[in-house]
């Protein structure tokens, strides 16, 4: 689905990614983890073409993404911070994105699922953080693309919406889609993901299943396994 070779990226003098090699196969949920500033968002934005790598090659569904924009039709992306143009209404934003990407009827169902009807005529600037995130989720899931990228999807969600989001993700997985998630909520990652990719200092430190990570670090539970990696590498 996604293949990354020898990806390097630095911002001015700050090296963020230094030689990432990653292959993500078709279908399943992959969690990208790592401490703050380890390059998770940069990695995701490189896949999306928002960050231009200094070196390396990325292919999505067999297409090299360099100087290409059409491959993004195959990706649904949920950005980390839901910043929308504040003078647009929710309804208008949804219509606009549909106009840009093609029509879909999925949005009605998602709006109902996240109980967004009362907000459709409100301006995005007046919404709370959680509601914005729900709009963000609707915009992401309303297109039926084979690759879904979620950057911190749980931010600001109340417990009911969180449950609905988890169900939604599982449903998409059942359709055979590939889902990439970054999150700091370990319980969420443990519950959802099939495989994890651990980034540390711009490189991939570990890739595999959660049980493999537990064996590798000799820790009984996931949260401690992650913590032990961090302690071992920063002590």
């Amino acid at each position: 689905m996604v293949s990354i070779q020898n990806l390097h990226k630095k911002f001015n003098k700050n090296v963020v990614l230094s030689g990432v090699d990653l292959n993500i196969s078709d279908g399943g949920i992959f969690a990208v983890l790592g401490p703050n500033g380890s390059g998770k968002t940069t990695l995701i934005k490189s896949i999306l073409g928002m960050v231009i790598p200094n070196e390396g090659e990325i292919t999505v569904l067999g297409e090299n993404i360099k100087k290409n924009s059409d491959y993004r039709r195959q990706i649904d992306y949920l950005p980390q911070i839901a910043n929308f143009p504040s003078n647009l209404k929710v309804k208008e934003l949804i219509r606009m994105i549909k106009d840009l990407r093609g029509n879909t009827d999925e949005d009605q169902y998602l709006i109902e699922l996240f109980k967004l009807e009362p907000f459709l005529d409100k301006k995005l600037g007046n919404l709370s953080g959680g509601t914005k995130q729900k709009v963000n989720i609707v915009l992401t899931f309303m297109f039926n693309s084979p690759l879904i990228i979620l950057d911190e999807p749980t931010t600001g969600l109340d417990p009911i919406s969180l449950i609905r989001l988890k169900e939604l993700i599982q449903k998409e997985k059942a359709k055979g889609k590939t889902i990439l998630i970054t999150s700091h909520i370990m319980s969420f990652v443990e519950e959802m993901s099939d495989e994890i990719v651990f980034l540390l200092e711009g490189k991939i430190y570990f890739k595999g299943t959660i049980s493999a990570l537990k064996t590798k670090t000799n820790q009984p539970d996931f949260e401690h396994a992650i913590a032990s990696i961090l302690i071992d590498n920063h002590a």
Partner: protein
Amino acid sequence: MLKILKYSFYDLMRSRWSYVYFAFYLLLGVVLLFLNNDLSKAVITLMNVIIVLVPLIGTIFGVMYYYNSKEFTELLLAQPLKRSSIFLGQYLGVALSLSMSLILGLGLPFVFYGLFESSAIWDFSLLLITGTFLTFIFTALAFNIALSNENKIKGFGYAILLWLFLAIIYDGIFLMTLIMFEDYPLDKLSLVGTMLNPIDLSRTLILLKLDISALLGYTGAVFKQFFGTNIGLIVSLIMLSVWVVIPVLRIMFKSKKKDF
């Protein structure tokens, strides 16, 4: 690109500032016509205002729009759209809506005053054409500055400096050089110097069309020989187009390499 253009244009059309800008020109047109009671004279006064104000508004609006629509831009970047069409669409949206405020705001009072029966119609059209050119030029320059500067305050600072330089400081330096080298033949040099600054170019173009070059002495005669002819007009319009094209090309080039 047209879709982005449409959304940027609507977005700006709904914003208060477009109306303020439009109302300002409307008021300016009405007041000038009322005070001068003469179309040709009103055109001259108007020129002096437009030549300075249009670049300033274009620069500030361009920079402001770019920074304010950052979120919108990031949303668009994740969609299957080319970068060049995102930024060109936004640029054209800003430039077109500003030009529309200018043309409608000034055009309406002049049309009602009887522009079409007057001989000033060509001078007035030239004024609007150069005004539109200046809007496109300075909005493009503003987008260039904003693309190259992540820091809003810096971006604004450079934009204002650019305007100050081209609108005021350039003339000062130009004049000083002319005085310092007054013993040499300078008409060619001053012609080139005028061509290199879009504001000067527009001003000279309109002044000479208005046929008041007699006031300008010998250099004026050289200028008149050049700008007064059709070739001069065409060369000047080409120069103004070059001033639009180069910054636009840089927008496309720069946006392809930028990280978001």
